[in-house]
């Protein structure tokens, strides 16, 4: 460290500055400070990330391998589309079963007058979900240009920001419309995406087959866990989980993952399960930000 007489002053100055920035950051007052830096940094990060990906790709094998990788990508894309279609069909099948039950109820109780409706939220969640727009979700394609420098937060930086119409809370999907996460912070030219595996991420989900509802959140080790499933509900290994659309924050039917292992016991208040995500979070390069709210 420096030995000059100014050392205590410099030390004090740095501590004061760090503390002021800390307070500004915690109170959200630092966004204006970050904006010009994000505009300058995003292209640089984008270029470096592209070069790094190219080098990583080149070192992985020869041209034959590249050809095979292309074919694999095509097959994976096709599989993703079919998987999504499968999820939707199973979801429709489950819905039809529910409608049949309702129909049976109305037939069995002809004196009742019934009105059909969709569940759009639980408790006092406000007016979300009442938008009558069609479900054609439009999005902005984005490249992942950086990862979070903190190992305790699972965020990635994408190269679209406020100028592309991106807002906090918008859903981000990957291959096969598998949910990647949500927009956590927005700068002018880039945005931070909070991944599903972040320990601060909580998503309302529904099992396609058993219709059980719960919350999926991230764990420190990078895994996903299904929680808050009432004991009365059934969980099945291999059952697919999709977003339930409750609270209106996310659209319905976005694939989240598959139940891998049930970890809870009957003695516990709620059921728990480990979830295998539908997206490989270590290999996401391109994502789609859904900019139109359902």
């Amino acid at each position, binding site marked *: 460290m420096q030995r000059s007489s100014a050392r205590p002053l410099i030390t004090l100055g*740095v501590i004061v500055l760090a503390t002021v*920035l800390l307070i500004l*950051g915690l109170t*959200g007052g630092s966004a204006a400070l970050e904006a010009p830096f994000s505009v300058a940094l995003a292209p640089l990060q984008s270029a470096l990330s592209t070069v790094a990906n190219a080098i990583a790709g080149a070192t992985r094998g020869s041209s034959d391998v590249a050809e095979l990788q292309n074919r694999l990508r095509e097959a994976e894309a096709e599989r993703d589309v079919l998987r999504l279609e499968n999820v939707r069909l199973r979801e429709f099948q489950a819905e039809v079963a529910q409608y049949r039950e309702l129909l049976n109820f109305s037939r069995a109780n002809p004196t009742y007058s019934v009105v059909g409706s969709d569940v759009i939220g639980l408790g006092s969640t406000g007016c979300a979900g009442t938008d009558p727009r069609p479900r054609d979700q439009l999005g902005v394609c984005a490249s992942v240009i950086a990862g979070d420098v903190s*190992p305790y937060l699972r965020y990635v930086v994408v190269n679209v920001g406020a100028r592309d119409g991106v807002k906090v809370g918008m859903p981000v999907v990957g291959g096969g419309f598998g949910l990647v996460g949500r927009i956590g912070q927005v700068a002018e030219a880039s945005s931070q995406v909070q991944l599903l595996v972040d320990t601060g991420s909580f998503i309302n989900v529904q099992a396609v087959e058993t219709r059980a509802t719960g919350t999926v959140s991230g764990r420190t080790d990078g895994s996903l866990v299904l929680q808050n499933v009432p004991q009365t509900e059934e969980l099945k290994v291999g059952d697919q989980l999709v977003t339930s659309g409750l609270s209106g924050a996310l659209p319905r039917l976005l694939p989240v993952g598959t139940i891998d292992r049930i970890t809870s016991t009957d003695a516990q208040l709620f059921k728990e399960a480990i979830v295998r995500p539908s997206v490989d979070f270590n290999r996401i390069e391109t994502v789609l930000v859904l900019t139109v709210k359902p």
Partner: protein
Amino acid sequence: MRLRYVLVILAVLAALSVVESSVLPVFLTAAGSRPNLVLIATSVWAALGAPYALVWAFLGGLMADLNSAMPPGIYAFGIVLGNLVANLIEFAPIPIRWFRATTWTALVTVIAHSVWLAYANATGHSVDVVLSATSVILPLLLLNPLAALPAFVALDRVTKRLFAGM
């Protein structure tokens, strides 16, 4: 210090922060196993007794903060606090200079990561402290000081050239 040197140091810190966020994640996919380049460079710089080391630690931390979902200042605060605590090494002088630099880096790693971990838990991220200590901090206690060795060799030459007359 000449403006030229200031600009060079700032450019190096900016480059390190961009590489740490954009290049390392491509090759090292597990978040815990990535060395903290900015932390290493600024710690070795401070351990070598370079002038204004705390200021560089602060500015380097701020640059890294731009690539984090943490509010600006948290990364910087962790590194600054780490370097302040690492100053305690002055009371127990380590004669071997490279060993002093690696010990300094290890100490800053522990302090800075503790700050970041505390912040994450204080803001609604239920990060498992024991798991983080064993899967992130412990491996980095080996990785960061190891990476500090080449940084020591490079920065030792740079400091000798830059600050010979100061």
